[in-house]
């Protein structure tokens, strides 16, 4: 029972993070039909930026969080301008290629500035390491903070879409590009903001997660694959799907790792991607049948 | 012999009925036009005949063989050719190579034969080039043979597309708006070309078209679709005078106004 509780808590916590990153992927996909391969690496860079602010320069945690998110916003907007917008006309495959390139550039930069292949950078924990008991399950306070933070970000995100003007424009563009243009929405700008928002969400996720795991340059891709699995599982066109998918992947990982073999942790996402794309390409919540991209 | 026989054809996409119990025949050597307002189901009809869409109900027979539900490659092998509304030539090849691709079903060289450039494969390639050249010359486009497909204007590409379909000596060709992008003079020339092909090569045509002049001049019969249903089937003169047809295109108000004036 202890094991189950532990795995459950762990799965939900990491699941919340996958959900956040998957949200970014889905939002960009919905708006542009393209997948940003560098999404995970943008996450990673934000995490390192937060590390620089908080650990290297001693700024308070929350401030570092805010700054990292802001940095994420800016970097996301820049990435969109440089690697994305000019290629949207060409083909979505070009976008993928360019974002693959971007992913490597970001990784190389991170490796150059902060550390090499084997260096894992620790982030100090925010709360005491003594576990709390929640209904018989032992939970680390850090995990609760992460979970709470993730949920807060998701709610903010939902509110942003529902209530702000920009959010509504993003939704409109995502639903029907041509109509959006006709109505006068500057889709180019909207793409930029979509990207930027997607990245800042990833940035927030990075900072939230940094205390519980280690930060290293290759984590970006690992996270991208897992979150992509989550997004695809939920249905690439469904935002609630991304959230559900994220938690599901987190739980699948935790339980397969705990009960079957630790080796299975990484590979479960690969298998999910393959199975979903072959047998259920629209995911759990995606309505439409798979369009040829 | 009936070249094409469509019986009670219905096609549904999701909840939408794109075609509803459409029936008509096409005799050998006829040029039949398919007309109707946008969204009437014309392209769906062509797609279903050529195997790209699935029929939900009904039967299609081509040259005596049942083709309902068969794959597009099989139907093409039986001698049915097709051009597309928005398509262009394959941009990665020259015009001549595009037409040579039309001979795919009439050539047999395997990958191994190609990789090792066997004598049989080389002979087949020369023969294919010769036939493609002749087809291009027949439509008057041989001057562009070695240019990349994209260098031609849209109208010119449509003509080459016809050559590409012709080169495999099909029995029936489905044309989807062949006159799109052509000027008035070129439309007249297309008219002549289609007749020539029918007279000299014995090809039957079924074509979707909006250009009224072409339909009137070249079609032996016209089938009118509206909202997925066939509403008329007859000679061009009869069809154009039919009130229902006018209504379909322009709305009932117009017809009432026309009659009362």
């Amino acid at each position, binding site marked *: 029972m202890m094991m189950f509780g532990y795995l459950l808590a762990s799965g939900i916590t990491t699941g919340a993070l996958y959900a956040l990153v998957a949200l970014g992927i889905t939002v960009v996909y919905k708006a542009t039909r393209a997948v940003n391969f560098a999404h995970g690496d943008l996450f990673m860079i934000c995490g390192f930026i937060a590390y620089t602010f908080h650990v290297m320069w001693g700024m308070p945690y929350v401030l570092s969080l805010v700054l990292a998110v802001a940095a994420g916003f800016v970097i996301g907007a820049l990435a969109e301008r440089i690697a994305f917008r000019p290629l949207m006309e060409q083909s979505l495959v070009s976008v993928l290629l360019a974002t693959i390139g971007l992913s490597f550039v970001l990784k190389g930069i991170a*490796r150059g500035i902060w550390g090499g292949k084997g260096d894992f950078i620790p982030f100090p924990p925010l709360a005491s390491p003594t576990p709390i008991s929640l209904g018989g399950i032992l939970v680390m306070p850090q995990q609760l903070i992460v979970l709470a933070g993730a949920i807060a970000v998701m709610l903010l995100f939902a509110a942003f879409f529902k209530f702000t003007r920009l959010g509504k424009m993003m939704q409109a563009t995502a639903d029907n590009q041509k109509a959006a243009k006709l109505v006068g929405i500057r889709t180019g700008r909207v793409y930029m903001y979509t990207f930027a928002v997607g990245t800042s969400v990833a940035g927030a996720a990075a900072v939230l997660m940094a205390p519980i795991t280690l930060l290293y340059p290759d984590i970006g891709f690992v996270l991208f694959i897992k979150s992509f699995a989550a997004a695809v599982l939920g249905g690439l066109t469904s935002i609630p799907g991304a959230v559900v998918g994220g938690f599901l992947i987190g739980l699948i990982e935790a339980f397969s790792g705990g009960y079957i073999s630790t080796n299975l942790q990484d590979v479960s996402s690969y298998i999910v991607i393959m199975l979903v794309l072959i047998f259920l390409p629209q995911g759990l919540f995606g309505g439409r049948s798979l369009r040829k*991209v | 012999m009936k070249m094409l026989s469509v019986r009670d054809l219905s096609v549904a996409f999701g909840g939408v009925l794109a075609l509803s119990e459409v029936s008509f025949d096409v005799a050998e050597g006829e040029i039949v036009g398919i007309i109707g307002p946008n969204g009437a189901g014309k392209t769906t009809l062509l797609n279903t005949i050529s195997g790209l869409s699935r029929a939900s109900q009904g039967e299609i027979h081509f040259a005596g063989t049942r083709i309902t539900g068969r794959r597009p490659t099989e139907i093409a092998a039986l001698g049915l050719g097709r051009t597309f509304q928005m398509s262009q030539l*394959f941009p990665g090849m020259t015009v001549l*190579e595009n037409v040579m691709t039309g001979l795919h079903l009439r050539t047999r060289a395997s990958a191994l034969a190609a990789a090792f450039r066997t004598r049989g*494969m080389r002979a087949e390639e020369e023969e294919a080039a010769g036939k493609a050249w002749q087809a291009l010359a027949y439509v*008057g486009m041989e001057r562009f043979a070695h240019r990349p497909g994209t260098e031609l204007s849209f109208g010119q590409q449509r003509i080459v597309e016809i050559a590409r379909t012709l080169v*495999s000596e099909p029995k029936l060709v489905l044309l989807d708006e062949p006159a799109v992008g052509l000027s008035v003079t070129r439309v007249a020339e297309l008219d002549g070309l289609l007749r020539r092909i029918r007279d000299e090569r014995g090809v039957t045509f079924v074509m979707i078209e909006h250009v009224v002049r072409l339909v009137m001049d070249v079609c032996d019969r016209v089938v009118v679709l509206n909202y997925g249903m066939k509403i008329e089937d007859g000679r061009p003169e009869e069809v154009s005078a039919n009130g229902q047809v006018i209504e379909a295109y322009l709305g009932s108000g117009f017809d009432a106004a026309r009659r009362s004036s």
Partner: protein
Amino acid sequence: MRLAFGSRQFLALLFLGLAIIPWVANPYILYVANLALLYIILALGLNLLVGYAGQFALANAAMFGIGAYGTGLLEVRLGLPYLLAAPGGALLAMLIGTAITFPALRLSGIYLALSTLAFAMFSQWVLLHWYSVTYGGGGFRVPNLDLSPLPIGPDLGIYYLSWVVTLVLVVLAWSLVRSRIGRAFVAIRDGEIAAQSLGIDLLRYKALAFALSGFYAGVAGALYTPLLGYISPEGFDLFQMIIQKSMIVVGGMGSIVGSVIGATVMVALLELLREFKSTQEIVFGSILIAFVLFRPRGIVTLLRRLPGWEEPLSSFDRRRYVVSGPASPAAAAAATGLARAAAEPARGEGR
């Protein structure tokens, strides 16, 4: 008589140069040249699948690994001599490459890319964790190449073996694309629906393209094994995938010569930056972005305009099909009004 320097001459010169490298270079350069040969094979196979047939699959590095592992394991576990193990490894890669086709048939674009990527990651995981068969992350040594009774040592042996194999594979690919097969591939890439209406069976040709790229990658893997003397999962990872993709983007997609150029350029770059992994990543990533943005068709487009550098998808005698004057029987036959349309100047390139 004009001396033309076209793609054939370029390739001949390149291979001639590569043939004499062992006599003029030190062992390190020999190793790099050998690597270049292998990457040429990899780039060729990938280009056939991605550049010609338009299937944007990201599993090539995995096929490379399967070829290498297959060969090495057949040697080490079953004691097969290299000349039997190598084809075995290559065939294994080809079979697995073809097996991927079936799910791939329904997917395209990004979905194809990411599902094949997932497959590649999955196979890397298998190589890493299936200790009982693959020796896991530590890898394993393979015996030196023994080409007796030929009087040639292992280093020179593997080099010339690679040279011969690469040359053969280049020639085969060259011939293959200049045929109805090449045209079928490009038709599928440029217009799947029209291709089907012309009778081109998508499953068959996509399977062929996947099989070919699997085979080529497998052969490269089989040649890689004796070159390194040692196999581990490391060399077949995501970075490897990026390198291969960059080769064909930089060299030119849909071009045999482009594959060769891209491979040699990238290998040179790779070795120059060998010391600095982070620099490697930044440089490769930037090159990929730059080329996708500014020269997506690759270096070879600069050359294509020159006479002798075109890469047709056909192989007939060009001289028979030239529009001369009215004397040409073909022109005389085209006596319709549409011949006037032919007299219109063609539009400039692009629309």
